[in-house]
């Protein structure tokens, strides 16, 4: 993975740039070497690079002031929320300024009759729900990282979660944003109402990985909490049959809020780690439904009926909050468990649900070819896979081998009609595979959008598009502020 060489002229001007930033944001600039190191990577820890400086504004106006300086100086800016990106989206370059919104975490307005909450984007995902749950509401998108990740990163990556089968991902729950454009102009896109006036710029901004502007506030749709929710755990002797079960449930017209899938290596690792009491089988589904007690019983009954026809190893229907927690325990600790036994790389390709059996089989074969173990845990209802490739980071060449294997899996996802990333984003991690999914004109159309929002390509310029493909545009002369 290559990053552009830092611009020596920017490095040489560091003192001046930092001084200008300090003028603009007294108290919000970090440039000491030991301190900027805290920002050298996100959750894709294989890649690290300390930035030139870090700016931590407290207001939208300060964000604008910082961007004006960077724009005038031609300094690349990498926006940052909580730094939990698994794609390297918040990875700095040595000549960049990290612009973090962590100090902006206020709830600005909660409005229950109109069902929205207006927040600053440094606020963590879980604390958005935290602000409204006492009144019976919640914010639906629930990435597993929700305790740590910020709304800023959720919007930039269009993050999803376990419950998006029913509630959709970030873009389906976002009403509007306050955003600062690359040249420091503050604007509002959308607001506390539904649907765009004119072109759907909000839909374009969500998922643009910090390349079109810095989002400082958001209007988020909130929903009344369901009366209750309970899962059923279903074990199967084959991944294929588990895949079939997912299809049959969906075809039967039942729409669970979540259908999660784990394979044997993942089940074994989480059992050793969390002791959730899962059956030792080839594949396991956790299917959750919502409603009143009677509604839940009825839906779980239908789901169990569908499962029973496929000869399951075990069907364990939760009858209480306690049993539900035990069923979810293993799934929720899956990533932690894998991290205990090994270094791992977490992939994120999506495939059509019907291709599940074929793709799982092929991943198994490739695992033998590459000599690296894979554990699968993912959102099966929508085909968003998370193969975890296990490797040893201390062993020479293993990271590269792992990356080559990962690339092959992602190519397979595209080949069967899916895509490179379902929720983590492209960042640097999948950047160089974009040409597998998109033809040159498809990428040109996307980069045209970047040109319009950020003609000088100062916002997160080395991400998303392969460097060779974006080279001509990245060098485009800066349009003066």
């Amino acid at each position, binding site marked *: 993975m290559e990053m552009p060489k830092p611009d020596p002229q920017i490095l040489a001007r560091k003192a001046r740039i930092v001084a200008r930033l300090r003028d603009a944001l007294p108290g919000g600039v970090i440039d000491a070497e030991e301190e900027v190191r805290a920002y050298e990577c996100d959750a894709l820890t294989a890649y690290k690079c300390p930035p030139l400086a870090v700016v931590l504004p407290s207001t939208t106006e300060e964000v604008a002031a910082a961007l004006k300086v960077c724009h005038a100086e031609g300094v690349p800016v990498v926006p940052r929320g909580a730094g939990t990106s698994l794609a390297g989206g918040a990875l700095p370059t040595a000549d960049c300024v990290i612009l973090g919104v962590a100090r902006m975490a206020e709830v600005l307005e909660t*409005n229950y*009759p*109109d*069902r929205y909450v207006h927040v600053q984007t440094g606020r963590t995902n879980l604390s958005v729900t935290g602000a409204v749950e006492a009144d*019976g509401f919640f914010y639906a998108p629930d990435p597993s990282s929700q305790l740590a990740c910020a709304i800023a990163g959720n919007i930039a*990556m269009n993050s999803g979660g376990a419950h998006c089968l029913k509630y959709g*991902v970030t*873009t389906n729950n976002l009403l509007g944003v306050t955003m600062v*454009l690359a040249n420091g102009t503050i*604007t509002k896109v959308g*607001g506390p*109402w*539904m*649907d*765009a*006036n*004119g*072109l*759907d*710029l*909000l*839909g*374009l901004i*969500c*998922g643009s990985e910090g390349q079109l502007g810095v989002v400082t506030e958001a209007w988020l749709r909130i929903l*009344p*909490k*369901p*009366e209750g929710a309970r899962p059923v755990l279903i074990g199967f002797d084959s991944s294929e049959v588990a895949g079939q079960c997912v*299809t049959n449930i*969906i*075809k039967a*017209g039942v*729409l669970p809020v979540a259908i999660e899938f784990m394979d044997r290596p993942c089940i074994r690792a989480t059992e050793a780690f969390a002791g959730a009491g899962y059956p030792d089988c080839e594949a396991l589904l956790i299917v959750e439904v919502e409603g*009143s007690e009677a509604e839940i019983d009825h839906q779980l009954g239908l789901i169990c009926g569908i499962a029973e026809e496929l000869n399951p190893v075990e069907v364990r229907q939760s009858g209480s909050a306690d049993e539900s927690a035990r069923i979810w325990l293993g799934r929720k600790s899956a990533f932690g468990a894998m991290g205990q036994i090994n270094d791992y790389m977490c992939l994120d390709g*999506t495939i*059509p*649900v*019907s291709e599940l059996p074929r793709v799982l089989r092929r991943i198994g074969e490739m695992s033998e070819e590459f000599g690296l173990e894979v554990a699968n845990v993912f*959102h099966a209802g*929508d*085909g*968003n896979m998370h193969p975890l490739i296990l490797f040893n980071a201390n062993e020479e060449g293993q990271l590269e081998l792992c990356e080559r294997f990962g690339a092959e899996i992602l190519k397979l996802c595209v080949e069967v*009609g899916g*895509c*490179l*990333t*379902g929720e983590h984003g*492209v960042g640097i991690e999948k950047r160089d595979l974009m040409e597998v999914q998109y*033809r040159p*004109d498809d*990428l040109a*159309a*996307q980069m*045209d*959008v970047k*040109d*319009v*929002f950020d003609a000088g390509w100062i916002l997160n310029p080395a991400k*998303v598009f392969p460097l060779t493909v974006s080279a001509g545009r990245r060098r485009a002369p800066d349009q003066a502020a």
Partner: protein
Amino acid sequence: MNGLSMMEPQSEAELSEALAGAEGPVSVRGGGTRGVVADGVALRFGGAGISLYEPGALTLVAQAGTPVAEIEAALAAEGQRLAFEVPDMRGLLGTEGESTIGGVVASNASGPRRVSVGAARDFCLGVRFVDGAGRVVQNGGRVMKNVTGYDLVKLMAGSHGTLGVLTEVSLKVLPKPEVAGVLSIDGLSVSEAVAAMSAALGTPWEVTAACHTDLAANDRPSTQLRIEGMAGSVDYRLGRLKEALGNYGEVETVVSENHDWPWFRDVARFEGGAEDVWRLHCRPSDAPGLVARLPEGGKVMLDWGGALVWAAVPAGTDLRAALGAFDGHATRVRGQGGGIARFHPERPELAALTAGLRAKFDPRGILNRGLMA
């Protein structure tokens, strides 16, 4: 049809050639039910047909020229549907023709269920289109979760044919629930109706639509809420909702297998009239204030729990001027308006971005020229 002939390329390649070679403005149409014609030669993409439908994966891919009716029939055969509830506006707009899926996506056309499940744009997983320079572009795909690169799918949905001509769309579809229950209360004022609808949408009983009309068939205002699902569950939730709304007036409930709400979905309230018809997108709690500022004789229907106000006002009314600034926007859907812009003017910095995007996707400015201005 301006007396000009209509171009009807049958394939994406032909369409690309036609647009690259176009010598003047092009008026893009699907089924033509919207009844608005831009300058220039008419162009309709002739490609039609469902190319892929996987009920078990909740996905359907179709050529843009496919009639919506054909898609709905294919889905119904598998007990599924387009959840965003495509409106049929022929009655309202006094037009003929068959809506196409391309036209629906291009205008982000969504009905009452939008308040609970989302708009057409939320169900659109992928697009293929040809831009104003003849460039063929694909974005998104056919899977439900996809964050690979920028989301041009959303940009195209609701772009009203001004950035490119869609050739293919892939959609997320949903199962059609067993039954629908409707709860209605007669005689509420607009502000009472909004309060009742907000209260209902704030319960966990999963209201899938909430509408109000100032004049129903029985000559009284009517506020209606819809709940869908399995029979037992709908009965239960209707019952709970009835209890919760008892203080707003006498509550009636009906359960049936009919999920369609053509009266609200198609804005039948204003069919056949000569007034201009506008859509206002706003906060529900702002709706009563906006309605109070309508010119004398204005009529209203509320959808989306009050987040969408349909207003019929005397032809030529400058409704934006009458309402003054508010959080949201106003679009005129019917009527010529005498020089008053159809779409709500954008904030200057957003207008600049829009103009920049148009310059990239339609450098000669030939597609539906001036339509969204």
